[in-house]
């Protein structure tokens, strides 16, 4: 793992129009190349807002975001080409089959011809979807849709991959397959930024995590460091619950 940051955030703040409180309140952190960085927090903590800003979906109200030393204002296309996103919702066309969906999204990243076909075939094969590739997505199970959702974000071999709860609502088998392949992608040089509610999954999957709540970073470090820094906490979930005060969140 390299220690050179690929993502740098300084004093990032986002206040949505008509909102009384900022969703993200002046957070700063850096993510190194080849890390699997977990952004953990309860509902409404500001995880998705942070990831959306990092993906260039909307600009921050204030603060600085640098991706690979470039910012969105001057290098939007270059940054977008190097990132991949696997959104929380299944962002695919239900009336198209898996191959048609992937051909379209792959093309939007500039892939075409044999390169695109090979990449699609390779990923469909890896995630066990070759036989179902010509079926409409609306006939897929939740786990199968999640796998296609993942492929759509990684076809172009991104340098940075954003995963917003990629395994939510997925059975154990599908989850294992997804996590295993994400580790493979990371091993090939892709930096992963990951959000999840599965603390156990985050503990084993992430190289470093940041716990965020109410728009602020509460703590940051490797899962082992966080557990060690909280005496009596046997795992990351206990650390998380202690820091976020065990209150129910909407």
């Amino acid at each position: 793992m390299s220690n050179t940051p690929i993502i740098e955030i300084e004093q990032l703040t986002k206040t949505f129009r008509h909102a009384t409180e900022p969703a993200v309140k002046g957070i700063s952190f850096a993510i190194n190349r080849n890390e699997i960085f977990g952004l953990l927090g309860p509902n409404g903590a500001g995880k998705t807002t942070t990831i959306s800003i990092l993906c260039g979906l909307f600009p921050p109200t204030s603060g600085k975001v640098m991706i690979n030393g470039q910012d969105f204002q001057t290098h939007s296309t270059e940054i977008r080409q190097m990132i991949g996103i696997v959104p929380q919702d299944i962002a695919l066309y239900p009336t198209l089959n898996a191959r048609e969906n992937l051909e379209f999204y792959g093309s939007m990243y500039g892939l075409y011809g044999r390169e695109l076909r090979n990449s699609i075939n390779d990923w469909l094969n890896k995630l066990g979807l070759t036989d179902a590739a010509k079926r409409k997505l609306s006939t897929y199970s939740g786990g199968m849709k999640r796998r296609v959702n993942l492929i759509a974000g990684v076809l172009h071999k991104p340098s940075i991959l954003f995963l917003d709860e990629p395994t939510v609502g997925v059975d154990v088998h599908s989850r294992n397959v997804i996590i295993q392949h994400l580790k493979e992608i990371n091993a090939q040089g892709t930096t992963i930024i990951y959000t999840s509610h599965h603390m156990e999954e985050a503990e084993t999957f992430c190289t470093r995590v940041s716990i965020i709540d109410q728009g602020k970073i509460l703590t940051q470090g490797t899962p082992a460091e966080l557990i060690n820094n909280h005496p009596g906490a046997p795992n990351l979930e206990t650390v998380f619950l202690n820091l976020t005060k065990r209150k129910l969140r909407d």
Partner: protein
Amino acid sequence: MLHKLLATVKKEVLLLLRDKVGLSILFIMPMVLIFVMTLVQDSAFKTMNEKGIPVVFIDNDKDSLGIQIERGLKANDLCYLSDSIDGKPASVETAQKAVQEGKFLVGIVIPKGATEAIRKNVTELVNQTLNGEDSAIHKSAGKTDSVEITILIDPVAKKSFLISMTSNLREFISEVKTKIMFQTFSEQVAEIIPDKQNAPTNSYQKSQIIKYKELYASKSEDKIVPNAVQHNVPAWTIFAMFFIAIPLSSSILKEKNEGSVFRLHTMPTPYLLLVNGKIIVYVIVCLIQFVLMLSVGQIFLPMLGLPALVLGNSIAGIMLLTGATAFAATGYGVMVGTLASTEHQAAIMGSLSILLLSALGGIWVPSYVMPEVMRNISAWSPLNWSLEGFYKLFLRGGHVSDVLGETIKLLLFFLATMTVTSIANRKKRAV
């Protein structure tokens, strides 16, 4: 960039082909609409022009006036004359009842002695004139026995038809009066001037000095006759083209709701390119719609006994105007899809606005029958620009130069919708 555009076009085509409801809205609904509207309006047209409006005629005069009016009305395409009701000779009472019941739209009653009254008045007038009495006409005007022709009217009868009918009656009465006057005058002159050679002949009565010729003001050398097909096919084709706003806006909102737009906004592809992919596909859909509608007008409607659609002289003009209409309709659909927040909203906004624009644009009712205020508003409807353009090409034999104004207006409308789309899209993303 071309690969991306082609991929977008391919995706749009696949989405469209798998949307059965959308396809039926795009192709089947407008074809059915053209069939139904043309058949309905054609039968109304036939009632007016082929068989004529049903008129019950009671001739109690049995003389020149009654005979002349009956002959004249029978020769007129406007009405279908009958002197009996349910197989029995019509009387004033039965005619009134029949008109009340809607069996006839109009009843005409010529009173007994009508011709005799006219003859008496005219003879007196001629005598006075020949005897050299001053101001004979003015004097006699006050003494004339008036002839009252009764017209029974069904309240549903159109004002324009009644005006036409009374005008015809006036013409027949005037003709009879002139004939009687000329005949009486000739007889009186013949008594004064024994030389028959110099007496006025009766040939004037038979001559028709003023004739009428109906000529449609068209540039086309072909005789294009305005009919239900010539009016309805372009009108409903334009309506169908603009109706793509519903499936198009729905497809934009589906992408938003299904999360695809979220992913697309993070990709190294300008959103405009994605919109362009949609525009290309839906413009092609509009052109296919147009060809289908024309084939309905040219091939299928004649199979049902209706006249075939005549395209006029300018294929280039048709292509230009169709292209501009297709862009205007597609731009409108993209704008509705961007402004609406839900599919439901888009469906209501799209369908109502198109119904409104089409009503204002003269699709349902020709704009020339609208009140002046509405006519002025109508001039702002893109459907009206397109319809006016097609009327110029299909009915007035226009060429490319004649429809340039409409074409430019439609293309400017497209640019305006794209500008609104771009601003609305930027506003929505600036959360």
